[in-house]
Structures are given as C-alpha cells and as structure tokens.
C-alpha cells in the first residue's frame, strides 16, 4: 500500500462489509467494528478463558485478570462505597474496553477505535444514562438533589444550581472529548514526528538530524502507552465518581 503522509489518514474508516444505508447513514462493518470485537475477544480470553481453571494458585494470566478485577473493584469501592458493587461490571467493562482498544491502537498500522469521538461519546452516554436512569429510579425527585450542594446558603443557590446543572450536562462531553482528544492528538503527533525522520533522511545532508525526531518518536511512543492506560483509568474512575452521584445525590 502507498505510504500516506497525511496524519489524518490513519483515522479513516475502512468498510469491510457494506450493509447498505439508512437515510444518509452508511451502515457498514468497518475495521473499527472489527477492532471492537477483537477487543471483546481479547478481554474474554483474559478474563474468562484464563480463569477457567479456577486455580487457587493462579497462573500468570489468571493473576493478571485478578489484579485488574481487584484494581477496578477497589476504585469503585472507594468512589461509591459498598452499594456501588452492582456497577462493577459496567466500570470493569468500560475500563477493559477502553484500555484494550487504546493499546490495540498502539500497534503500528492498527486502527485506534477510541480516536473517534462518536465511539467515546457513545461510551460516555452509557455512563450518563446509567447515572440518570438509576438515580431517578432509586431516588425519584430526590435525585435532583444532585444539583443542590448541601451546606450552601440559600441566596448562593441561585448561582450554584445553574453551575451544577451545567457541570452535570458537560460531563458526557468532557468524558468523551478527553479520551478522544488524547488518543487522536497522540496518534497525529506520532505520525508527524515519525514522518519527519523520513523527510530528513531524504533531504541529503539534513539526514544527520534525523535521529532527533526519531528519539522524540520513541519517547512519544512510551508516552502514548502511558496515555493509553491512564485514559482508560481516568474514564473508569470518573464513571465511578459519577455513579456515586446516582447512589447518593445531594453531596
């Protein structure tokens, strides 16, 4: 395939199976969808196949699955208390899904699913809808207490309540844009710096400078691995924090 120097090219969706149209929407099984199912497969392999032995003394993969479980369970427990345990599958699924998709995106020539805003927004929507639906179902109108900070003098509430409402509404946006922008910007930066190496190499004497962007690319790669894991953790932690609101409105 022709090498594209366009740093945006890597984010294009490649339909593998086209399924027709709905309105102006094109429905197709793209490489993005394939990556999602691959991620689901990897997670299932790690958490289901690796634990099928149910050994008391775990092997490596089972130990990894247990560590991830305890990590997320601790995070959820700290944010939401004992009642938050029912949300553990959701937070764990979100964390693993984002983590594996981010890491898959780090493989050269692979596609970063989380670099598409609609995907991260879809995940954020799952979180916010869970918060709202569970909060209303459990607390009814008391759920509106989430907009009323306790211990604030009445006159101040006139200012605080609108701020709280805006802050609540911006949650799905900040949650999705944070992940999307991190992954997108990281991949663009990687591509640009990596391309500098090539450009310098073909520019004759300037080629002696090519190790500089190469070193930067390597450093950026390491940073992107950190970002991949960190953003998954941030997504999971914020999800747990927002879910705590659904459990205990009126903070």
């Amino acid at each position, binding site marked *: *395939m*022709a090498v*594209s*120097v*366009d740093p*945006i*090219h890597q*984010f*294009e*969706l*490649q*339909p*593998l199976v*086209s399924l027709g*149209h*709905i309105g*102006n*929407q*094109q*429905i*197709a*099984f*793209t*490489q*993005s*969808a394939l990556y*999602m*199912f691959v*991620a*689901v497969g990897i*997670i*299932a392999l790690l*958490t*289901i196949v690796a*634990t099928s032995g*149910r050994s*008391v003394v775990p092997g490596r993969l*089972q130990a990894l*699955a*247990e560590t991830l*479980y*305890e990590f997320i369970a601790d995070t959820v427990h700290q944010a939401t208390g004992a009642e938050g345990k029912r949300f*553990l*599958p*959701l937070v*764990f*699924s979100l964390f*693993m*899904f984002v983590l594996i998709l981010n890491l898959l995106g780090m493989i050269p*020539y692979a596609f970063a699913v989380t*670099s*598409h*805003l*609609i*995907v991260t927004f*879809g*995940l954020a929507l*799952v979180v916010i809808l869970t918060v709202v639906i569970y909060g209303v179902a459990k607390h009814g109108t008391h759920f509106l207490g989430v907009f009323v900070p306790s211990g604030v003098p009445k006159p101040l509430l006139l200012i605080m309540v609108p701020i709280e409402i805006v802050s609540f509404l911006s949650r799905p946006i900040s949650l999705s844009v944070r992940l*999307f922008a991190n992954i*997108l910007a990281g991949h663009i930066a990687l591509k640009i710096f990596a391309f500098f190496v090539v450009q310098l190499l073909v520019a004759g004497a300037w080629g002696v400078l090519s190790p500089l962007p190469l070193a930067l690319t390597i450093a950026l790669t390491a940073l992107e691995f950190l970002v991949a894991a960190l953003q998954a953790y941030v997504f999971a932690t914020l999800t747990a924090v927002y879910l705590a609101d659904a459990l205990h409105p009126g903070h």
Partner: protein
Amino acid sequence: MAEKNPLTTPSPNADTKIVPPGSTQTHTEHAPGGHGAAFPPFESHTFLSQLIWLALAFGLLYYLMSKVALPRIEAILNDRSNRLSADLDQAQRMKAEADAAGAAYEKSLREAQAKAQGIAQDTRNTLSAEADAKRKTLEAELNQRLAASDATIRARTAEAMGNVRSIAGETASAIVERLTGQAPDPATLNRALDATPALN
C-alpha cells in the same frame, strides 16, 4: 488497510472511505498529503454505523463480564480468602493444642519435681531423725558413763582424802612418839588434825 475494497460503494474513484450516498463531495481522490479530505472522526454519516457496532460489541462485553467473567473471578478470590482463613484457623487451633500439650507437660514435670523433692525431704527427715535418736542415745550413754566416772573419781578422792587424814594422824603420832617418847592423846591429835586446813 486494503487500498481497494470491492465491497464499498462502487464509485468510479473507488476509495476506501465511507462516502455518504447522497453526498456530492469529491474528496475521494485521496492523494498522499491530500489535506482536502474531511476529518474522519467528524464524518457524521458514519456515526450511526459506529454506534450500532459499539452497542453490539459493548453489549456483548458487558454481558460476558457481568454474567461470566466477574462472578467467576469473584468466586475465585472468595474461595482463596476462605481457604486462607480456614488454613489460618487450623494453624491457630493446632498451635493452641500444641500450647496446651506443652502446658500439660510442664505441669506434670513440676508435679514430678515436687514429688521427687517430697520424697527426698522425707528420706532426709527420716534419716536425720534416726541419726538424732542414735546420737541422743549415745550422748545419754556417754553422759551416764561420764557421771559414773565422776562419781567414782569423787568417791576415790574422798576415800583418798580420808586416808590422808588417818595417814597424817598416824605419821604425826609416830613423830610425836619418837620425839617425846610417848604417844599423843588421840583427842589432841584429832583437834590438831582438824586445825590443819589442808586435811579438810
């Protein structure tokens, strides 16, 4: 990655991008460095498709995690902690048993020691009582003998002293008889003997 995809909409400039059906955009010629292309994450005609696949994939993942994976891992962790605490309990119990056995041993040892000491004390007491009795008999016997000897000595001394007086009387009467030619009057002699302190 496929440069050419037969399954995409058969547009003349078959590109691998998803193109909205009604779109009249002509950014299909995707030359390297072609900055005229739309920004893929904002191509809204792909949103529904992506959301559908996301819902399917994430729904499947959530189902697998909540029904299979997490209950299993939780069961494994619970099982392990149960087993650990059971083992610890057992160890605790065994330690308690060992402690009890040790205490019992110490107790019987102390009892045995006390018993041995008692026996030794008894034996010592008996022996010393016997020795005391023997010593006392012996001492009594010796005292008796001593007293007997004393009495004998005193009798002999008295006897001897009596003899001394008669000897002194006889000697004195013999000396007086030699000097004066006549035996002294026994009454005078007795008076003279009485007057001599050494003879009394």
